[in-house]
């Protein structure tokens, strides 16, 4: 049987399909979408959507047949996990030909996504033309009028097939034939979107043209096709940005929606021990989801019925009738000795005990003194970081009667900063403000406790401190924000609008030996009080009893057993997520409770980006192609980029690869005319879970041609980079000059870097130089920078940015800043 059967009735559906209700992550509203899987029919359907001429359909089908026959590459990174039938090959948020020329016309969600990437701001300020592609669809394309008048063409390739058939037919597939490699064949079969650029003879396009590419949905492949032709003496600079908006960069200490879990991330298992996510999976699911509502309502979660959940079934430990409402008699001795078991979520009952493990991770850090914890505790409750007269300050607002807390805080601030904080009484507000100018304290509060009420959250460093230290923080936080209720004994409670903080406080209380329950009050509309507008945001209340546990929750070793109050069933159609974690204990926590990796059939959540880029530089033309690739870390990025340079032409590839799971990309230049030049600058930055196999090819087939290849790579936190290069000098190509330089940097020595240079030199007079250096960041360099007052992570960051300076100075400023920010983020995880 076929691995996947295309439902042509559905595939051919031109009426709008609304997928939003099926997805709970990003809205995926596609006007056109072909169900996942690949076949001749899918290829035909794509061509039909696009209303293509026959020659293109025939080309696609030839390419498809070659793709099927062609084996996977037997070299380079392992691509064995790619399951071609798990991808959607065509998903377009617009109808074909509906590409917008006005930014305002775009649907809001798409507009928002791209605005996070800096368009249309970039367009107004800098670029001569901008294109944007969202999965398969080119949603936006615009070029400046002055360039149009000069005869410059900049449109999506689908449009070019219709409007410039002669040029497209002349060049399409001539630089990169479909049978060049398996992925060029795949692209040639299913391509959609991409840019087409034509610059007429002698015209200098001047300001760069820019395109953004974004894969939104998981398992959607993006296969854009770009063709750039610079006619005789023409000049053009094309820039492409690939990648997610910032929100997908993940941090290990956050309560993260499960669908955002990435490979390599640290999660807790059922023993309360940190482990690493090895693989993430998603599958389509059609059926009921089981809702498990424990005694702490805020910890409710949903799973598929077959998903195993760690529990102690109540019937096994009850001496009498069981059920949450009736107080049955429990066999407490048995509760302490029985081994919890995995029960499919669909078979759980109210009253069964879920296992809430106490996080055992403890990493002390002597830079957190008791005074630090006091300040952070009050900061969570009452604090605010702000710039006052452009000077960094931390301020706290207390009730005027809270003199004791004000004193404790002031003392701690003085101990930390050596400064006496100011105190401004504001009797009319019954408040007193405490504040101090201190850059160090400002940075520390920001780093370890966040900013603004909704975003307050503790850093991983604080969460991992010994529980004894954390006690002061909790005490001061409760001093500020907590209150005591005397219903059925003393209950301490604290309220926050930060979801993150609510779950962190629950975790911290667990480490103190208390199970705290979380209740959620849904937001409601604004009300007026004392003439002021009050908005009611979603509010989390955390309760615990300092004297005894909530009656129904039982401490068992390093866990709490929390009874299920209620079960619910909800119909669902959409993606469900799951992941494998390292170690034998293949478990993880959902809202604090232990579940097992689900054994249901799975698909990888990977996405596939297989682009083909063809560049033609006619005699005396100059083309620069800049790429900044920051795909999210589940994308296979397998791209074929090739240029042909004729007499006296210059082609420059500036190619930066920071994102993706696996990248294989070797921009190449075929130097076919006398004195043609190639300049290739390729940069790779690989962190945890990433393999970037990149490089360059220069094929000299004419005399007096020259090429310069510079490859820079950084591999940290176990990332891998490889340089794979080819230098070919054909017989008859005399007087060739070629220089290759490969610099690799391994800052923490956990990364890996390999170099595979291939030289095929058939003319003796060729001047070839090759340098390869693998370095690490020297202790002496770090010491030197630190002796000037820079922190260790700042020192490393400066050294890394210096290493990449040759690349970053070639980028537009927004991209250079983004690169800077990205490396800073990666280093923040690697150091300290």
């Amino acid at each position, binding site marked *: 049987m076929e691995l996947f059967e295309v439902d042509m009735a559905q595939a051919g559906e031109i009426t709008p399909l609304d997928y939003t209700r099926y997805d709970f992550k990003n809205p995926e509203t596609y006007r056109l979408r072909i169900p996942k899987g690949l076949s001749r029919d899918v290829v035909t359907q794509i061509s039909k959507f696009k209303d293509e001429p026959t020659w293109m359909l025939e080309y696609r089908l030839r390419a498809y047949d070659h793709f099927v026959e062609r084996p996977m590459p037997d070299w380079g990174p392992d691509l064995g996990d790619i399951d071609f039938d798990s991808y959607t090959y065509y998903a377009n948020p617009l109808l074909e030909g509906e590409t917008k020329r006005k930014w305002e016309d775009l649907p809001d969600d798409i507009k928002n996504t791209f605005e996070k990437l800096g368009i249309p701001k970039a367009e107004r300020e800098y670029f001569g033309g901008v294109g944007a592609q969202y999965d398969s669809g080119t949603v936006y394309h615009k070029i400046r009028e002055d360039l149009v008048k000069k005869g410059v063409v900049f449109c999506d390739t689908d449009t070019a097939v219709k409007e410039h058939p002669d040029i497209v037919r002349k060049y399409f597939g001539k630089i990169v034939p479909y049978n060049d490699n398996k992925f060029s064949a795949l692209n040639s079969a299913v391509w959609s979107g991409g840019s087409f650029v034509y610059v007429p003879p002698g015209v200098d396009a001047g300001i760069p043209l820019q395109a953004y590419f974004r894969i939104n949905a998981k398992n959607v492949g993006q296969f854009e096709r770009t063709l750039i032709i610079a006619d005789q003496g023409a000049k053009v600079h094309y820039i492409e940005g690939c990648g997610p908006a910032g929100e997908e960069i993940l941090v290990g200490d956050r309560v993260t929606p499960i669908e955002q879990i990435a490979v390599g991330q640290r999660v807790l298992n059922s023993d309360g021990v940190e482990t690493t996510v090895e693989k993430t999976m998603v599958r389509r699911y059609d059926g009921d989801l089981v809702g498990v509502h424990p005694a702490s309502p805020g910890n409710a979660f949903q799973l598929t019925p077959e998903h195993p959940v760690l529990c102690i079934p109540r019937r096994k430990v009850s001496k009498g009738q069981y059920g949450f409402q009736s107080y049955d008699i429990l066999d407490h001795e048995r509760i302490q000795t029985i081994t919890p078991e995995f029960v499919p979520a669909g078979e759980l009952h109210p009253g069964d005990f879920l296992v809430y493990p106490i996080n055992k991770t403890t990493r002390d850090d002597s830079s957190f003194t008791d005074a630090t914890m006091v300040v952070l505790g009050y900061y969570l409750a009452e604090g605010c970081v702000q710039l006052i007269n452009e000077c960094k300050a931390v301020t706290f607002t207390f009730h005027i009667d809270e003199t004791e807390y004000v004193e404790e805080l002031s003392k701690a601030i003085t101990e930390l900063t050596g400064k006496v904080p100011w105190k401004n009484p504001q009797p009319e507000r019954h408040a007193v403000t405490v504040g101090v100018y201190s850059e160090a304290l400002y940075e520390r509060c920001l780093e370890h406790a966040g900013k603004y009420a909704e975003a307050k959250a503790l850093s991983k460093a604080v969460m991992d401190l010994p529980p004894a230290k954390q006690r002061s923080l909790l005490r001061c936080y409760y001093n500020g924000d907590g209150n005591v209720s005397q219903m059925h004994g003393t209950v301490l409670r604290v309220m926050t609008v930060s979801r993150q903080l609510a779950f962190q406080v629950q975790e911290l209380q667990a480490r103190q030996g208390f199970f705290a329950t979380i209740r959620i009050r849904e937001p409601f509309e604004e009300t007026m009080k004392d003439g002021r507008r009050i908005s009611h945001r979603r509010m989390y209340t955390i309760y615990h009893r300092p004297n005894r546990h909530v009656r129904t929750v039982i401490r068992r070793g390093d866990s709490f057993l929390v009874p299920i109050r209620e079960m619910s069933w909800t119909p669902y159609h959409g993606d469900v997520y799951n992941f494998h974690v390292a170690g034998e204990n293949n478990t993880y926590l959902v809202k604090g409770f232990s579940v097992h990796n689900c054994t249901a059939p799975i698909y990888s959540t990977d996405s596939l980006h297989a682009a083909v880029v063809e560049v033609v530089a006619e005699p005396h033309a100059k083309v620069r192609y800049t790429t900044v690739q920051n795909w999210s870390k589940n994308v296979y990025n397998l791209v074929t980029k090739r240029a042909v340079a004729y007499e006296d032409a210059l082609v420059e590839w500036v190619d930066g690869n920071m994102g993706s799971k696996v990248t294989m990309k070797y921009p190449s230049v075929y130097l076919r005319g006398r004195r043609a030049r190639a300049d290739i600058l390729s940069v790779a930055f690989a962190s945890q879970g990433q393999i970037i196999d990149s490089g360059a090819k220069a094929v000299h087939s004419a005399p007096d041609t020259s090429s310069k290849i510079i490859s820079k790579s950084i591999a940290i936190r176990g990332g891998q980079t490889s340089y794979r290069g080819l230098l070919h000098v054909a017989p008859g190509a005399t007087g060739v000059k070629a220089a290759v330089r490969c610099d690799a940097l391994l800052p923490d020595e956990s990364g890996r870097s390999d170099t595979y240079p291939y030289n095929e030199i058939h003319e003796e007079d060729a001047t070839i130089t090759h340098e390869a250096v693998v370095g690490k960041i020297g*202790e002496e360099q770090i010491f030197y920078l630190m*002796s*000037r007052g*820079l922190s260790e992570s*700042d020192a490393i960051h400066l*050294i890394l940015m*210096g290493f990449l300076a040759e690349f970053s100075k070639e980028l537009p400023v927004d991209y250079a800043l983004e690169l800077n920010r990205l490396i800073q983020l990666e280093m923040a995880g690697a150091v300290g």
Partner: protein
Amino acid sequence: MTEPSAPKQHSLVVEDFHAEVAGKEILRGVNLTLKSGELTALMGPNGSGKSTLAYALMGHPKYKVTRGRALLDGQDLLALSVDKRARAGLFLGFQYPQEISGLSLSKFLWTSYMQSHTAETADTAAYDRELQTHLGFLGMDSALLKRSLNEGFSGGEKKRVEVLQMATLHPIFAILDEPDSGLDIDAVRAVGETVAKLHRPDAGILLITHYQRILKYVKPDRVHVMVDGVIARSGGRELAEELEAKGYDFVRPAQATA
């Protein structure tokens, strides 16, 4: 904004300071007090421990302090990380400065400067003016600012860049480790005269040198001679001249009887 307006007296007190490198004890009980307003020269033969003292005070990870204290205005330097020592006001001018590819000298200087300033306290105009003045003093081409830090710099350029950093950072105590070694006569003079000019009443300088020739320009208030990891002899400027005339051998017996 909490900066006091009147110049303050500072002190760097080194007491019974012992340090080892790779398990080998180099410093065997150094006692030294630096005061602001004073220019102190530390002389001594090769291998006597002068540079070790400089690195150990700055906190180089390979130099282990096994005994003793170092207090900057009463604050325990040894409890601070390298960057915090720098922010506390300590500066080390390196004998062999590191090269950092891609990091321009101007960016490095500004980043270092901003470690002890906020957006409010930083005075860009004054910074630029001062930088140009010091470049002039040191006879340096401002084109150097655009180049990668120390990369491909001549020996003399590297030494001048160290002094330039001291000039822009305004440390409370600067230790200059052989700023004159490997320099020709003109360069020694430029470096020496600049150090003398930079010497302020509210800051102190400890100049480590092997030779007397730079002292002609910097004119130290105090001279200490280190031999075998201890201060073997201390005195005024005349001690340096005596050393020049008699060589280091003449201090050794003093150490032997100490």
